[in-house]
């Protein structure tokens, strides 16, 4: 395993090799391993570079553990707005998730519906491309349209365009209070309608999820409100009124319980002990019930108001085949199917073209995203 300690050392390693490398942060996200044998880990590139709470700006080295980043922010009552998930329990992996891994896979949690994805909070990157050239794009300011936005391109490129060494974020203040509106007994179709109605209200929903089998085994629709205490109380009441007759409603405001509940959603715990292939499906929210009918999963969770479906499928099911005629895309995280949704020809050609420019030797995560 290669463990560079500095960006220069990393650049030199890449310059001097022609052998394929498997790029890894903490290795907890069960990335498609690709075809490379040699592992290159960024875990040696760790530490805080800059944190200005008054400017909502954080710059860290890519190998920094996510837990460390979150602790630094929490000390100033701030956080990463996009609520990255921890894949360990769901995927049965171990190790320490790194912030670079979060960026490489554009990992975003339930707050995606309101605060955006990882790519929306990311304002700067430094990385070493497949030539061993150190590159930077973006910076430490949140408004920047100078040149092409390679920050977005790097985010979610799974180490195939370069090895991240440093990432910069716009961070946000933590909320003072949370309320969760829990609606019992809805069908998936009814739940998506309820979530759409809530997300179209002015009450700033920061989480909208549905499980057909909550902690007590019954279906639950969950709507999260965050902010100052008085405001949260007001919005919870106003939203409940606006939703009308949707069934039995319970409002949970206990800080510990709401936190645990949304970690349960974020980390998809309800699917972790179910056998079968694991799929992550991104669709138009109103299409979610049709997708569920088409694929008939063993277990599932809806997040992002229905726009994100996590599903456990009988081993070997071709979810993409079953989804035909419905827009969106499906990623296979566990199972024999190819991990990434095949792209239309033009986009595949452009992507291959970009990859050839950033990694002409073809040594960065070959086989991944291909």
């Amino acid at each position, binding site marked *: 395993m290669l463990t560079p300690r500095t960006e220069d050392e990393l650049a030199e390693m890449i310059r001097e090799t022609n052998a394929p490398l498997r790029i890894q942060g903490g290795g907890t996200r069960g990335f498609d391993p690709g075809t490379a044998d040699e592992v290159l880990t960024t875990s040696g590139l760790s530490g805080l570079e800059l944190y*200005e709470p*008054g*400017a*909502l700006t954080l710059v860290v080295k890519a190998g920094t553990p996510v837990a460390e980043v979150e602790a630094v922010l929490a000390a100033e009552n701030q956080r990463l707005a996009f609520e990255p998930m921890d894949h360990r329990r769901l995927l049965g992996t171990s190790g320490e998730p790194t912030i670079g891994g979060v960026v490489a896979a*554009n990992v975003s949690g339930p707050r995606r*519906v309101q605060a955006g*994805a990882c*790519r*929306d909070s990311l304002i700067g990157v430094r990385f070493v*491309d497949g030539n061993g050239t*150190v*590159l*930077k794009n973006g*910076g*430490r*300011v949140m*408004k*920047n*349209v*100078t*040149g*092409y*936005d*390679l920050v*977005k*391109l790097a985010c*979610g*490129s799974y180490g195939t365009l370069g090895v991240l060494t440093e990432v910069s974020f716009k961070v*946000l*203040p*933590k*909320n003072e209070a949370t309320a969760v509106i829990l609606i019992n007994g809805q069908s998936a179709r009814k739940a998506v*309608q309820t979530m*759409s109605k809530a997300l*179209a*209200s*002015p009450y700033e929903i920061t989480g909208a999820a549905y499980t057909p089998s909550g902690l007590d085994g019954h279906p639950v629709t969950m709507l999260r409100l965050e902010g*100052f205490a*008085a*405001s949260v109380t*007001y*919005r919870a009441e106003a939203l409940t009124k606006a939703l009308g007759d949707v069934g039995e409603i319970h409002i949970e405001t206990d800080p510990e319980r709401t936190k645990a509940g949304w970690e349960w959603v974020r980390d998809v715990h309800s699917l972790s002990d179910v056998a079968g292939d694991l799929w992550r499906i*991104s*669709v*138009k*929210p*109103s299409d979610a019930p049709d997708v569920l009918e088409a694929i008939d999963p063993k277990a599932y969770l809806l997040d992002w108001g229905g*726009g*994100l479906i996590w599903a456990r499928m009988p081993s070997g099911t071709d979810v993409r085949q079953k989804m035909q005629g419905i*827009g969106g*895309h499906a*990623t296979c995280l566990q199972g024999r199917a190819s991990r990434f*949704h095949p*792209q*239309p020809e*033009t*986009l595949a050609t452009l*992507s291959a073209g970009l990859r050839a*420019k950033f990694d002409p030797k073809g040594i960065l995560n070959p086989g991944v*995203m291909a």
Partner: protein
Amino acid sequence: MEMPTPNSRILERKSRIVARLLTVLPADAVIHEEVETRAYECDALTAYKCPPLCAVLPASTEEVSAVLKICHEEGVPVVPRGSGTSLAGGALPTADSVILGVARMNEVLETDYDNRFIRVQTGRTNLSVTGAVEMDGFFYAPDPSSQLACAIAGNIAMNSGGAHCLKYGVTTNNLLGVKMVLMDGTVTEIGGAYLDSAGYDLLGLICGSEGQLGVVTEATLRILPKPEGARPVLMGFDSNEVAGACVSDIIKAGVLPVAIEFMDRPVIRATETFANAGYPDCEALLIVEVEGSEAEIDEQLGLIMEIARKHNPVELRESKSAEESAAIWLGRKSAFGAMGQINDYMCLDGTIPVSQLPYVLRRIGEMSKDYGLDVGNVFHAGDGNMHPLILFDANKPGDLETCEAFGAEILRLCVEVGGCLTGEHGVGIEKRDLMVDQFAPDDLEVQMKVKDVFDPKWLLNPSKVFPLEASEARRAH
């Protein structure tokens, strides 16, 4: 600002190129008479003008594709144009280029409130996107000052922002999908009405690429439910440092205003003379706006004013009504007009880390004395996006050049303190030659390699963004 010498082989073939374009477009969509092409000789950066070879106004994606295919075959550069409101020269033609305007493509194609998106043709203006959904309680968040006129196509090309992006983000954060035509005429779709797209984030790459990678003809945009209400508070301080510290304290306190606008004394005075908004005569003025229900607004403004009081404001005025809100915004909204009343001005757009505000403002003041040109500052303080307005006299020989040199020095200062050349206007031709101050050669080279992939012949808006000497080998065929 230097532009490449027009390719004489293209100029000689003008009649043939126009004739070919007329085979795929109606006669009124191909503008080639010299008197008429003048309408497309510049954008809002009016200091630079050059009529194009011709201008075309396609009415559909198919027509855009047909036009690009012909231009690709003929080796003619194409300059895409939204409404021509770029302050950076993004839509400035060269004599050997075809202007491709999307103004005739302004339809709403689909609105979907359940899934909270709208799909439009990109010639539609920014404000009319909100106009199409506001009766149902929704809005499109990015709000550049030119929103009455500017087109979504240009917003995507420049990744436009606005006063409210502190909370809602800029164009790239509100764009879900596009239909785009590549330079060779290939039509492709990226993303869609869902929150994350498959594969590389090409949508993020397209947004802000200044019309150099493709022509976007349709856009799927995220729309948001309108907040229940919004109200600002105005605060005056007797130094820029104190106002800057107040901004930082507000942000640290956990309130997230939708806008924090900053004006300095020259701008305050100019707007008072011009619009009579009733602003206090002080060194620095902040307008902080929050959203929510009446009670939520009261709570947030209360907290903000409590923070402001610790900084001994010379004035603290909370809006209690729509009329008072309008009065507070009046001066800010007329700031550019007010400065224009005094003289010609150049509007800069650098972004700096918020903590550097007082230092940068002081340095700009010192430079103003050195260059002998007045400057006013009005900007989005929450995100550090500055808009220094340098006053000059366009009729006075040498004044424009002095102004440009002054502007360049301010932008270099922005980069030096950890910021960037442009926060929301784009590079265009205006900041092209300063790119080497922000980017190392390798960082520029890799961006040009991205263009190589999308537009191998470098025909789309080729003389923009990159310094001419850096892109020369790629542009010369």
